[in-house]
C-alpha cells in the first residue's frame, strides 16, 4: 500500500489545525510570560458552546463567534485569578482543565434540561451539516495537480489558522503592542519602569490566547466532529504546549512543530491499516514529542556552546 498519497498530506493539515490554533495561543502566552496550561480546558468549553451556539442561532458563523467569546471570557477569568488575586497560574490552568471535563458535562445537562426538557450528554443529536463550519474549495488552486488536492478543500478555520501564523508574527514583532508583550515577558519590572501597564498587557496576552484556543475548540466540535462530546479535545491542548516548546516559542517553528504532530498521527492512522499492533500505533504522537524535545534541547545546547565559545 502506498502511504504517501494526496489524502495523507491532506490529513496532516486537517489533524494539525486544532493543534496549531492552540499552539499560537501558547506562543503568544509564553512571549508575554503567561504560562497558560489551561488551553485544553478552554478548548473543551469553547467546543461545547460553539456547537450549542450554532444550534441555537442556526448559524455556524455565530456559533464560531460564541466559541471565541467563551474562550476570551474563560481566559480573562483565568487572568483575574492569576494576576489580580495572585493565584499560581499553573493551578488556575489545572482548574480550568478540570472544568473543561466535569464542568462541560454538568453545563450541557443543566442547559439542555432547562431549555429542551431532556438532559443530553453530547450535542451530536442536535448538529446537522448546516451547523458545521464549511470547507472551502479554492478556485484555480484546486486544479493544480497533486498540490491542489492537498491544500484546497480544507475547513475555513484551517486557512484562518495559517493566516493567524502571519498575524502572530506581525503582532509580536511589528506592532507596539507586540513589543510590550515581549518586554513584559522578558522583564516586567523594566517594562513597568518605562510606563507600561504590566497587568493590562498580561490580560491582553491571555485574552488573545483564549480567543485562539476558542477557535481550536470550535474546530473540534464544529468541523472535525459533528457536535460536542465529553473529553473530545483529548489532549490536543497539551500537545500544543509541547509544540510551542519544540518550536522554540517562535510562530513559524511552532507551526512546523504542529505539522510534525499532524504528520505523526496521520502516519499512525495509515500504519494501522497494515496490521501493526494498535498499542504500538497509539503512542506515536507522544514518542514524536519526546524525540523532538530531545532534538530541540540538543540543538539549543550546541548553539549555547557555540555562543559561549565565541564569547570566550
Amino acid at each position, binding site marked *: *500500500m502506498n502511504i504517501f498519497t494526496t*489524502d495523507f498530506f491532506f*490529513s496532516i493539515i486537517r*489533524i494539525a489545525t*486544532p493543534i496549531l490554533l492552540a499552539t499560537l495561543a501558547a506562543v503568544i502566552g509564553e512571549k508575554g510570560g503567561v504560562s497558560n496550561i489551561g488551553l485544553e480546558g478552554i478548548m473543551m468549553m469553547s467546543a461545547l458552546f460553539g456547537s450549542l451556539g450554532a444550534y441555537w442561532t442556526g448559524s455556524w458563523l455565530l456559533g464560531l463567534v460564541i466559541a471565541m467569546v467563551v474562550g476570551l471570557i474563560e481566559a480573562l477569568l483565568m487572568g483575574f485569578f492569576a494576576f489580580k488575586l495572585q493565584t499560581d497560574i499553573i493551578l488556575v490552568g489545572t482548574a480550568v482543565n*478540570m472544568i473543561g*471535563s*466535569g464542568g462541560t*458535562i454538568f453545563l450541557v*445537562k443543566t442547559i439542555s434540561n432547562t431549555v429542551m426538557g*431532556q*438532559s*443530553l*450528554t*453530547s450535542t*451530536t*443529536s*442536535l*448538529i*446537522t*451539516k448546516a451547523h458545521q463550519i464549511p470547507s472551502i474549495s479554492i478556485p484555480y488552486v484546486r486544479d493544480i495537480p497533486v498540490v491542489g488536492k492537498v491544500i484546497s478543500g480544507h475547513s475555513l478555520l484551517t486557512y484562518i489558522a495559517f493566516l493567524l501564523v502571519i498575524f502572530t508574527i506581525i503582532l509580536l514583532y511589528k506592532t507596539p503592542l507586540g513589543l510590550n508583550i515581549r518586554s513584559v515577558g522578558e522583564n516586567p519590572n523594566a517594562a513597568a519602569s518605562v510606563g507600561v501597564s504590566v497587568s493590562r498587557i498580561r490580560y491582553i496576552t491571555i485574552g488573545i490566547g483564549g480567543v485562539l484556543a476558542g477557535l481550536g475548540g470550535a474546530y*473540534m466540535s464544529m468541523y*472535525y*466532529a*459533528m*457536535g460536542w*462530546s*465529553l*473529553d*473530545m479535545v*483529548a489532549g490536543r491542548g497539551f500537545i500544543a504546549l509541547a509544540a510551542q516548546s519544540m518550536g522554540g516559542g517562535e510562530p513559524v517553528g511552532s507551526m512546523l512543530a504542529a505539522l510534525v504532530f499532524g504528520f505523526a*498521527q*496521520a502516519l499512525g*492512522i*495509515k500504519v*494501522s*491499516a497494515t*496490521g501493526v*499492533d*494498535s*498499542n504500538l*500505533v*497509539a503512542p506515536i504522537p507522544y514518542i514524536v514529542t519526546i524525540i523532538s524535545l530531545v532534538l530541540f534541547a540538543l540543538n539549543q545546547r550546541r548553539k549555547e556552546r557555540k555562543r559561549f565559545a565565541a564569547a570566550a
Partner: protein
Amino acid sequence: MKKTLLALSTLALALVPLAVPQQALAAEPRNVVYLVNGNLGDKSFFDSAKAGLDQLEADGRITLNTVEMGGTDADQPKWLSTLYEVADSGEYDLIVCGTFQMPDYLKEVAEAYPDQKFLIFDDDTYAGEDANVANIVFRQNDLGYIIGTLAGCMTLDTNVERINEDKVIGFVGGYDSPVINDFMTGYITGAQAVDPDIKVDVRYTSDYVDTAKAKEYGNSMINDSKCDIIWGVAGNAGNGAAEAVLETGGGWFIGVDSDQELTFSDDLAAITLTSGLKNVGNSLIWFMDQWDAGEELFGKRTSLGIVEGGVGIVTDKNYDTITSDETKAAVDAAIEAVSSGEIVVPSAFDEGGNEAAQKLRDSVRP
C-alpha cells in the same frame, strides 16, 4: 358447548397474565439502589438499565433509588465512597452498578459487606470470587455474529446505494482487549460464513472519547481499504466513524449498545443502517424474574444472549427499508441458528480466545 369451552379457555388465558403480577405483588417489593458511574442521558447503557429498573418499579416489584455519581476522572473517588455508603446503610436488598470501571471498587465493598447483595452488569473481572455478587455479561460474540452476517450480505449486495464492488467491511474498536475482540470475533465469523472471501479491516482507536481520531480511522478504512460497511464499537469515539461515512459517502455505519439512529441528528441517522443492542434493562428484568422464581444468580457469571433478550439488533427504520429480503432472511436465519445453539460462535473470553480472535483478525485483513 363448544362456544362455552372457547369462552372459558379464553377467560383462563386472560387470567394467566393477571395471576403473575399478583403473585409478585404479594411478595414485599425489593429495595434496589442503582449507582450510575456516569450520567443518565447517555441513551445507552445507563439509560437502558434505568428503563428496566423503572419498569420493575412501575410493576411494583422493586422500590428504586438512583444515584448519579458522574463519570469524569474527578468523580471517580466518589464511586468507592458511595458504594460504601449504600452498603453500610443496610437499606437495600440489591445494589446495582455496571461497566468495566467498577469491579475493583465493587470487590472491595462486597468483601467488606458479605451480607449485602450486589449486581454488576457488563463486567466479569472477578466473577465467582464473591458469593454476594452477581455478574451479568452479554454474549456480544453472538451479537457480533448477527451483525457480521448482515454486514457480509450488505457488502455483496451492490444494488444497494453506496455499496462498492470490493468485498471489504470494517470494524472500529476501542481497545485491542477481550471485550472488544469478543464483538469482533463474532463479526468476522458471521461475515465469513456469508462469503469466505470477505475481508475485514479492523482498527482500534485506543480511546473511547476522541471522535476526531476515530473519524481519521474511518476515512482511512473507506479510502484505503474500500470498506462500505463500518461497525463502530468504541463508545462516543465510534461516532467519528459514522461521520467519516457521511462525509466520504462511503457506505453505511452500524451502531452499537443502543439504537443510534435515534441518538443521531438526521444527517448521521440517514447513513446508519442499524445498531447492535445490549439490552441492559431487559437483562435486569430477566434477573429479577429468576430471583423471584427462586434461582440465585449470586456468586457467579451469567451471560445473556439473544434468547434471554440480552442482545439484539434493530430491525425497523433504515434496516427495514434498505436491506433486501434475502439479507433479512439470512439475518433471521443467523438469529435462529445462534438461538438454537446450532451455531456456536467463538468468544474472546474462552480460554485462549483473545489470541484466537487476534489471529482470525490478522488472517482476514484486506
